[in-house]
């Protein structure tokens, strides 16, 4: 069992290298995260834990899809993976990297990463066993990385793995790899890469191994028991877990497709935890007053926003975008539609993210100034009250996924805000399968209302969102659907990807935020908050914006009443 002190001396990551090894906050955070995952500290020396008992039913409005942790997935899947599998390291709620399967997180300082940033060396714990009793070895890590690069495997996202030139097993528990060029976001990517068993998967000629996906074998605190499609996935405590064995014997990930039904079942006690997509905001007050229940406004890493298409003749003008940004009454949206839960946003990163630029100006609401700006730009109101300039009407459509009532109300409020300054925003909503297809990919929209998480695995590298080479309409890759191009941003992003020092990376991304928020390829609305809840007797819940699901540490939950 890894000692906390050993952990703290080796924790760090390419971006966190300037923290001292004895940094108290860091150690505390690491202990919190390690404890949360059941990687505790002196479990081996402690008295044998009592036999796990009881169960916890976790409700989600999305169904678990694949149980193979390297395939395409949704947020709920990751919640299951955190309990079935283990990554090399994780990112805790404060943004710190904490070793899980690895003995330490490689950095320039601890020698895990070579001075040129190209060679990485990871030493694994030697006390980890798969659920079938076989020991975890470096070969499993090599196999997992190889699988992500295998063209026949339906991998989720290969961007970071394409940067790995070669992988070598240097001993039973030591693995090394070489990168094509320094790539700092790899540490974050690996925090969401759950290691799969080579001895099981290599037996299957099909790299996608449906057999494994149906009955996975992991190293996590829980092992797979059964699945009823359309209903639930059941896990049970793994007595051979290398960390602290969970106290709750069974975890059940239950699918409750309707949010109202999920909240009702939370009220009646049929589910013990309400996870994604949470308790509807309109029930927040009522839920807070329920006896025997606790509710948590859980911050997500997503930013609700209006994504603009910069090819639109009116929206192409930065000054118009600034006027629009100023015309939105964000506070009213937060208060009226979302019952005061979220806070207005002013960046693509959320406050609390280690790279968030706290000195960015707050989004200002001043419709008079916005109108004056448009007047100054020569946008003159026509007979219908909508501004026109050079034959172009200041009118555009806004689209979101149909059925999201709160978003539809927000659209109405914003359309009303814009109307006050002589701008027309027409609502044109569609089903998800249509919106997230060519309409999004080929930038066929004028503007969208969505809530993307701009980071991948919490790394602030947003090349895929704002890089000029990441416009899917032009390059068939990336997610820069606003068609945003800024050479200065491109240069900074390229530097940020190769910079392993946290302080320097932080500076780079602070500047990136300044530039992007000055250009406004999207208009930030608010930082997403979802209301989650547990029964009062269920302890251990810990929100983490660096995980997709707050079931990430369910292994350390326990019943106290």
């Amino acid at each position, binding site marked *: 069992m890894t000692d906390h002190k050993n952990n703290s001396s080796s924790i760090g990551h390419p971006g966190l290298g300037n923290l001292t090894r004895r940094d108290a906050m860091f150690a505390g955070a690491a202990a919190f995260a390690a404890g949360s995952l059941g990687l505790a500290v002196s479990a081996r020396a402690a008295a044998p834990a009592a036999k796990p008992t009881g*169960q916890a039913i976790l409700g989600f409005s999305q169904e678990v*899809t694949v149980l193979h942790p390297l395939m395409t997935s949704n*947020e709920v899947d990751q919640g299951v993976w955190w309990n079935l599998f283990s990554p090399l390291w994780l990112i805790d709620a404060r943004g710190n990297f904490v070793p899980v399967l690895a003995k330490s997180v490689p950095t320039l300082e601890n020698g895990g990463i070579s001075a040129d940033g190209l060679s990485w060396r990871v030493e694994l714990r030697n006390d980890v066993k798969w659920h079938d009793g076989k020991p975890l070895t470096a070969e499993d890590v090599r196999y997992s990385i190889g699988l992500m690069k295998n063209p026949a495997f339906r991998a989720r996202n290969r961007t970071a793995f394409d940067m790995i030139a070669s992988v070598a097993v240097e001993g039973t528990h030591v693995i090394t790899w070489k990168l094509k060029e320094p790539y700092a976001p790899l540490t974050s990517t690996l925090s969401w890469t759950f290691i799969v068993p080579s001895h099981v998967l290599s037996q299957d000629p099909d790299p*996608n191994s449906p057999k494994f996906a149906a009955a996975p074998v992991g190293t996590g605190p829980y092992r797979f028991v059964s699945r009823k499609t359309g209903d639930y996935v059941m896990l049970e405590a793994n007595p051979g877990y290398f960390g602290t064995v969970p106290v709750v014997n069974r975890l059940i990930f239950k699918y409750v497709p*309707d949010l109202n039904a999920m909240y009702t*079942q939370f009220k009646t006690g*049929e589910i013990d935890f309400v996870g994604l997509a949470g308790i509807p905001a309109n029930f927040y007050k009522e839920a807070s007053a329920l006896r025997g229940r606790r509710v948590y406004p859980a911050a997500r890493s997503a930013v609700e926003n209006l994504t603009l298409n910069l090819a639109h003749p009116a929206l192409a003008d930065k000054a118009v975008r600034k006027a629009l940004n100023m015309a939105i009454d964000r506070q009213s949206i937060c208060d009226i539609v979302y019952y005061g839960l979220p806070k207005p946003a002013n960046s693509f990163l959320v406050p609390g993210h280690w790279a968030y630029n706290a000195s960015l100006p707050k989004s200002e609401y001043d419709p008079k100034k916005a109108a004056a700006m448009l007047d100054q730009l020569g946008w003159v109101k026509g007979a219908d009250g909508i501004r026109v300039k050079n034959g172009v009407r200041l009118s555009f459509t806004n689209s979101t996924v149909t059925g999201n009532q709160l978003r539809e109300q927000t659209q109405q409020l914003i359309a009303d805000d814009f109307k006050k300054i002589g701008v027309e925003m027409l609502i044109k909503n569609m089903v998800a399968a249509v919106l*997230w297809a060519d309409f999004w990919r080929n930038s066929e929209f004028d503007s969208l209302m969505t809530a993307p998480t701009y980071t991948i695995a919490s790394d602030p590298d947003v090349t895929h969102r704002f890089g000029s080479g990441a416009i899917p309409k032009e390059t068939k890759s990336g997610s820069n659907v606003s068609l945003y191009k800024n050479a200065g941003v491109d240069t900074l992003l390229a530097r940020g990807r190769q910079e392993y020092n946290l302080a320097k990376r932080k500076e780079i991304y602070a500047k990136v935020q300044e530039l992007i928020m000055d250009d406004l390829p999207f208009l930030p609305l608010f930082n997403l908050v979802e209301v989650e809840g547990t029964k009062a007797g269920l302890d251990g819940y810990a929100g983490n914006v660096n995980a997709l699901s707050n079931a990430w540490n369910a292994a350390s939950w326990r019943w106290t009443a």
Partner: protein
Amino acid sequence: MSRYLLSRLLQALLLLWLVSMIAFAILHLAPGGPLSQFLATGTLGPEDIERLMAQYGLNRPLPLQYLDWAGNLLSGDWGRSYRDDLPVLTKIGMHVGPTLELMISSTLLAMLIGGMIGILGAVRRYSFFDHLATIGAMVALSIPTFWFGLAVIYVFSVNLGWLPAGGRETIGDGSVLDRMQHLMLPCIVLALVSTAVWSRYMRSSMLDVINQDYIRTARSKGVAPVRILIHHALRNALLPMITITGLHVSTLLSGALVTETVFTWPGMGRLFLDSVGNRDYPVVMGMLMFTACMVLLGSLLADLLYSVADPRIKVGVQ
């Protein structure tokens, strides 16, 4: 008889082929695809979607995709879900049980209550009871299932705490009593509308029969009213009901979209709704073929039952 069955079988195969072609075309021509939903999570880019499309073979010409799908289906391979990689038949198998449990219980309840109301309404035509039954049926048909579901949950689960608010069983219990408790509310909600429908069918069918000459003759011969009702009227009134029941078989298996969603019932209706929403082509096609087979089987069964209920009708005789 065997010639009749063979001809019905050939007709069924032709119909299934047509249904499969039309469904396949409509499904694939609808905007969006099975992978586009993953773009919303931000963990996949369009390049990943392109790669996955190629891996699934979704970028090939549609006729080729259809031929592959049909060929696999004929060899017994119904494909795998794009969502969870499980075989389509396994998914259908897991959902059909809960649906049958819910639909059969609610249909039986509705047939029993609706049948009795219909018979009484016909026998006592224009009585207070008949008017009450007519108004009741109109009200039951007008109540939105979604609202009624939420209302019974609010009363019996939230306020009184008598019955569970959703699910098919308490996970970890699953005893018969527990399953019955979970079944009760969705069964009542579904039965409400069906009871109204069955009562109206039964009433009009009975009215047709009780005005026939042979009923009048039986009455004039002094046969006891109950005997006339059960032995003479009801048996003949049930004939059209057999057709309706036969056509109802497919409904029994396709589930109830709204009720299954409100009550978190893991049945076919919800599977279909989720699969269409996620453009899970293999599952949607599998379910459509399964339902089409059941429709054809149901109508064949109804025809065969006709000859059992009414000896004058001989199946296959022109």
